């Protein structure tokens, strides 16, 4: 709050009413300002500062500046790049799959058939599960002799029944299934609200023109909800870089097996918390923030215009 940028409206506060409103403004905003400063602005600044030090959580040695050592360490470590790659793979699969599935669910539920409210509820209920509970439940289903493999064996005549969580080629797939199950309802609801805002007259006009259902979907529905589709896809992409709970809980060990589900967040917690390397962990946090910032700028810049 630099005094240099005081806005014009603050200077006309001479009448008693305006003065009491100015006091109320400060009083109303100060709890949030104090909390945001202490628990967001300060740690955010600290992350940047600490990332240039060798600070440890518990260490008898004094803290000193190490320049860019932490960054060269992290960026020279194949573990970090492997984690970033896993995040990118997860994102590349989950973003289209989850957006597509959410759109399919929203379109199905939006048909106003008898029972659509029931199905909307069914698709949305997993939202109430924390990811930890979802992960534990899916461990039962994804057990080598679990329900998923029982179904798979019937469908593929026994050709496909992987050990989802111990075979590194399939662990990420297992994580993706859980993620879809637990959060696609969110995206569905956003798209459903968008679908309901598409003017009915557009559909009627298209029907009069004799457009097929597919053409109506392509030329009326999709353009009508393009803002929300873009929003859902980009927000899913940003969130996918926070992937942590499932990959911490589900594999035999966090990020495993053989680092197949290691992510940037696993690296962050492993380095900053388990090894107590606050300085190096902070540099991972800064790199993570830069990725999120880049994606957010991308999102705002390429938002479809009206």
């Amino acid at each position: 709050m630099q005094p240099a940028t005081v806005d014009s409206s603050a200077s006309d506060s001479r009448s008693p009413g305006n003065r009491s409103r100015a006091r109320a403004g400060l009083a109303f905003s100060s709890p949030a300002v104090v909390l945001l400063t202490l628990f967001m602005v300060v740690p955010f600044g600290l992350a940047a500062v600490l990332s240039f030090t060798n600070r440890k959580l518990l260490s008898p040695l004094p803290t000193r500046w190490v320049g860019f050592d932490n960054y060269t360490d992290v960026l020279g470590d194949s573990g970090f790049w492997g984690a970033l790659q896993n995040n990118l793979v997860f994102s590349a699969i989950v973003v289209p799959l989850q957006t597509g599935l959410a759109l399919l669910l929203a379109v199905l539920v939006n048909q106003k058939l008898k029972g659509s409210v029931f199905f909307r509820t069914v698709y949305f209920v997993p939202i109430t599960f924390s990811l930890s509970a979802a992960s534990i439940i899916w461990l039962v289903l994804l057990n080598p002799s679990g329900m998923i493999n029982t179904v798979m064996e019937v469908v593929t005549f026994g050709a496909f029944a992987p050990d989802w969580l111990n075979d590194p080629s399939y662990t990420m797939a297992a994580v993706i299934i859980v993620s879809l199950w637990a959060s696609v309802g969110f995206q569905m609801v956003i798209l459903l609200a968008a679908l309901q805002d598409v003017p009915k007259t557009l559909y009627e006009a298209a029907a009069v023109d004799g457009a097929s259902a597919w053409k109506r979907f392509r030329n009326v529905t999709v353009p009508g909800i393009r803002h929300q589709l873009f929003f859902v896809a980009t927000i899913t992409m940003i969130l996918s870089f926070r992937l942590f709970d499932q990959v911490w809980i589900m594999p035999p060990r966090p990020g495993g097996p053989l680092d197949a589900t290691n992510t940037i967040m696993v690296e962050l917690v492993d380095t900053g918390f388990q090894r107590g390397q606050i300085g190096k962990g902070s540099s991972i946090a800064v790199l993570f923030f830069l990725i999120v910032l880049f994606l957010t700028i991308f999102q705002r810049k390429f938002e479809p215009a009206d």
Partner: protein
Amino acid sequence: MASSKGLNRNMLIAYGAMGLLGLFFLFPIAIMVIGSFKSDAVVISDQTSLSAFDPRPFEASDNYRAAADTGNYFKSLRVSVIVSGVIVVGGLIVNSLCGYALARLRFRGQRVLLSIVIALVIIPFEAIAVPLLLMMSEIEWTNTIRAQFLPFIAQPLYIFLFYSFFRGLPSELEEAAMIDGAGPYRTFWSVLFPLAKPAYASAAILSFLYSWGQFLWPVMITRTEDVRPLPIGLTFFRGQPPIQWADLMAFATMMVLPVIIVFVIFQRQFVQGVATSGLKG
């Protein structure tokens, strides 16, 4: 519109698709609940046949007792209720007042504050978790309950949500109240607060879902069972060999059931709350 025959076929396809997808969403919930009723020994082995849906041999009371005693369910429930309760209630007060001040009052530094709040929306908690852990450790707040809620009360996103909501209300209401001699405090409580219920409902639901499921921060900040929230309690319970799947399903059922009940009661608000903002996945 197509012929009635075509319509029926389309409806059949739609119901088929909705039903199949519905199974994908319902099966895990059914397995959880039914698994919590039966003997530990058969939860996994029953999965290869329809007996997966048979709650026998029925040992529900053993399972739920194990979740409560060995799993420390009620200790974790207490922590989760306190943490989520403070975050939701405290957050509603702090964030709505700030959003109101930014939207409707005039004070020094207001515009700067607004742009700071908007900028802070971008910062994910994960980006500040490590230095925050150091701060908590320096003031010896690690392994406490307060360290689990204090950082999450003020949320830029909800401040912005309230700000947008209050901006959208017509100013005549407030002006009328002010002319009647009501100060900013009275005006807020008697005029704006009652109108803002939908915004409060959205913020409450979103922050509840987020805080109830929080995992990364409690992994870093909790050590002992008396401060472990439910998600951490569940993973510790699983970490005690041998894995007792039925006991775990009982823990999970007790963990999600209260939320599902609240969800069923307030379904409309849940759906609207998520639709208005749509964060988190």
